[in-house]
């Protein structure tokens, strides 16, 4: 279900913890699975986690599937719903909002013709509001596909970023 590279990465995570504490690796393992699905999926449905992948990862790590599901749904970066090729998460918490975060989110929505929480019809972009990313000084901040943080996202910066992602 997962590539050899992904499994090797999960093994690397497993090695961080004491031998009988393999459960600790579930967070990394789910992240690795999600990244592989995002990179190989062709449709929004194929880019998020689903029951099969979670069960596979749970079995690989050695914990009950429902325990892995608890983790996958507790932490909100694990995409459990269909998601575009580029998931754009804009922080709209108070410090960011004071510095244009809400504005940035709306601007992106206008440009892409979608509302917050929606995916473009071509399955390319999903726009989400996020909570504090620990980067309020760089507001407005935008997270692309969970891992790439973009700082100082003025309108011009947004235009440029979206163009890059086209």
């Amino acid at each position: 279900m997962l590539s050899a590279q992904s499994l090797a990465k999960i093994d690397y995570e497993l090695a961080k913890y004491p031998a009988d504490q393999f459960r600790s690796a579930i967070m990394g393992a789910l992240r690795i699975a999600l990244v592989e699905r995002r990179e190989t999926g062709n449709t929004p449905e194929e880019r998020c986690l689903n029951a099969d992948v979670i069960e596979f990862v749970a079995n690989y790590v050695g914990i009950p599937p429902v325990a892995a599901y608890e983790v996958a749904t507790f932490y909100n970066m694990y995409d459990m719903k269909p998601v575009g090729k580029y998931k754009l998460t804009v922080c709209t918490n108070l410090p960011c909002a004071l510095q244009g975060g809400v504005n940035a989110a709306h601007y992106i929505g206008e440009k892409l013709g979608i509302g917050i929480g929606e995916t473009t019809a071509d399955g390319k972009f999903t726009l989400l509001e996020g909570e504090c990313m620990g980067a309020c000084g760089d507001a407005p901040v935008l997270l692309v596909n969970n891992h790439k943080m973009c700082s100082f996202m003025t309108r011009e910066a947004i235009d440029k970023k979206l163009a890059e992602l086209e």
Partner: protein
Amino acid sequence: MAVFVNGVIFEGVDTATPDCWRLEAYMARGGYQALKKILDNKIPQEDVIAEVKNSGLRGRGGAGFPTGLKWSFMPRSFPGDKYVVCNTDEGEPGTFKDRDIIIYNPHALIEGMIIAGYAMGCKAGYNYIHGEIFEAYELFEEALDEARKAGLLGQNILGTDFSFDLFAHHGYGAYICGEETALLESLEGKKGQPRFKPPFPASFGLYGKPTTINNTESFASVPFIIRDGGQKFLEAGKPNNGGTKLFSISGHVNRPGNYEIPLGTPFATLLEMAGGMKDGKKLKAVIPGGSSAPVLPGDVMMELTMDYDSISKAGSMLGSGAVIVMNEDVCMVKALERLAYFYHEESCGQCTPCREGTGWLYKVIHRIANGEGRDGDLELLESVGNNMAGRTICALADAAVFPVRSFTKHFRNEFEHLIKHKKALVDHKWC
């Protein structure tokens, strides 16, 4: 981007050079000398802890608990595994200092944790890093690799019989994992649901073993303390408030960012460093210690110095040192609505008062903000808050209540106006 003013952690760090975080650069700044000093001189564990106590270092994660004292709680003679854990799950709105420490000076943290491991007899440590700053996590893993290759981590560090290893673990989007026992649960691969205390982590922590958890900035301050002495650190701040501290300033200032300044610096000075108020607007309110700290009116703030005691006397908290600055244009009802939404969304969901109360608070505040407030809503908010605060496993419920109490106390007229006239007193747009 951190701005260094007479600092400890960012001393000599040129954040403009891309390699400033590397081991080589850190060594050039005097890095790992503290560790060498300890290992070369076989300084006893007690003495290391005593030095940290002398420094007056108080935990930078929010509660301000004396770090040396915390270290002394670890059962040093305990025969089994023990752990040090670093809390880089910075998610408290307004706080963004730990990310800069990792990006620009990760080895200060690594060295601090190795020293902590030495002082408390731990064989391993973990750094739990906020999921949203994943690039910082990757960079930290690289820094760990450097340290491992240089013999600073792993078996027989620097050829001595002291062994210690350190690993990075990432979160993936849950504010509550900043709470130390939620962090431990998460590190164990579970949902981040805080544990009831007692037992405290010092006796029952990671995997049920004695564990000490400190904030990134706390650990990163340690090399300086050991190298240059606790006294020097203490003198950098003021009594009972030792050292310099990173303040993350956000909101309506000209230069948001991190400022490492001596504790006790007047707020006015800090505001000035941050370029003063944006567009010359008037200062209306400041949240001085992260979103969970009570808000203070601007004029009160201007009289205070930035240290634990002064802010606490004024009825708020220094917390994580996140200073959120709001100008005269801000509608305090809308501002509170943002925060209330955050706590509602981030409650871990286990305690009844927090799970149900955060939702209730948000729904009422949301109604008020939308001009659908009712008579009695403010009393309702207060009463619901009273039923939450102090009734839960962790302090998130309290953190959710403090803003509600302080906003409705200091800016009550704005709430009353909206409820009565269905229109905001301050016409505000989020720009």
